């Protein structure tokens, strides 16, 4: 089966581990310990009549782009950037993180998860932010690890994009 590595990146506590857990195990908890290093999960998906094994690398969230360990990104076929919709700084940092990732592994299929969509009343992301996000080469999904909304769609979309790029 084809294997594709996907890196989940973003600053700390944006919900990266929760998104993986929702996608892989259909579970949610807000009680996780912070990830140290990388946690790796697998999830087989079927894309365009082909079975693809997604290797999900859930990278430890840090304070900012300068703290992301680029050695973890090596060989990644796709990237899911995770933003906490209730914390503006997580959105501000993502542009810098994107630049670092692009420098490290080039332009690979990318999506951004505006996470915690179950808390939209507390979101601080406005239309201007969305317009800015739209200018960058990624697809934007609103996700909630709590309800599961948008989670599968984001991962499957990435799998489809990676499938159409020669490995």
């Amino acid at each position, binding site marked *: 089966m084809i294997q594709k590595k996907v890196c989940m990146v973003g600053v700390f506590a944006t919900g990266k581990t929760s998104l993986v857990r929702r996608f892989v195990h259909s579970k949610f*908890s807000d009680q996780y310990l912070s990830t140290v290093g990388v946690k790796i999960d697998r999830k087989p998906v079927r894309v365009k009549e082909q079975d693809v094994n997604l290797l999900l690398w859930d990278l430890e969230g840090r304070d900012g782009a300068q703290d992301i360990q680029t*050695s*973890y990104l090596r060989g990644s076929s796709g990237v899911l950037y995770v933003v906490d919709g209730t914390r503006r700084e997580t959105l501000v940092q993502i542009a810098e993180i994107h630049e670092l990732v692009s420098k490290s592994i080039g332009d690979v299929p990318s999506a951004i998860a505006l996470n915690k969509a179950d808390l939209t009343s507390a979101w601080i992301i406005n239309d201007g932010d969305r317009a800015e996000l739209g200018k960058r080469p990624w697809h934007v999904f609103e996700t909630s690890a709590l309800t599961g909304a948008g989670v599968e769609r984001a991962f499957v979309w990435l799998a489809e994009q990676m499938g159409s790029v020669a490995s």
Partner: protein
Amino acid sequence: MTLEVSGKTHLGRVRTSNEDRYFIGVLHKAMEIVDSNLEVTDAITSFSQLDAYMLMVADGVGGVAGGERASQSAVFSLTTYLARTAACTYDPDVEQEDEFLQRLEEALQRAHDVVRSIGTGSRAPATTLTMALVLGARAYIAHVGDSRAYIYRGGRLRQITRDQTMSAYLQDLGVSHDPRGENKLGNMLASAVGGSTMVPTIGLVDVAPGDSLLLCSDGLTKHVPDDRIAERLQSGKSASGVCDELVNAALAAGGTDNVTVIVARVSQ
């Protein structure tokens, strides 16, 4: 990157047998250049330096004989499988890394099958298993149960693994539970090698000179809190010295269980 590694285990003050097992090994992938008219490059000489350190702690459960057999069998199975398969495949290459991670999962499944073959049922033998395989700057971590792996870096101790106990699972589900009842339910393993359920977790962390890795059974962590563990790691003592201190601290605090520790100091 080299490691100074040491391990220690102790029966404790209460138990009559030691169901913990630990293992420290080095896998060598070496090429000795006998003669050549090639221009010898770093790419070639690097193969003479590739060592992988294999560190494991297992804490058996399921009665005296059963627990010992479970931890012994699991560590033996994992060690031999990885020595046979991983030694010839590990490589900095990305695809090889994916393959290696797969081998790691296979090795755990194989260990699980081996322990299951000893016996099944409500008192069947089972074991925790926490492993760090350090290759160059990368430590691959495989984990089942409630033994733990920690990294100590820059004065901060961080738990890499998450306990797979009923207590942790209930907490995950947002269910509060009576801490006084922990010994009955909370400390039960929700996932174990040889148990009815095994959900291994795989991860990795890149290490740097100055870091220390600690693997331990719950005989340490039920008696010695993280801040006291950190103090010992901060002391600058040798890996062996820190192992002695940690085991002694667990014994001084009651030593109600077998206690096992492995400490690895990372240097250039």
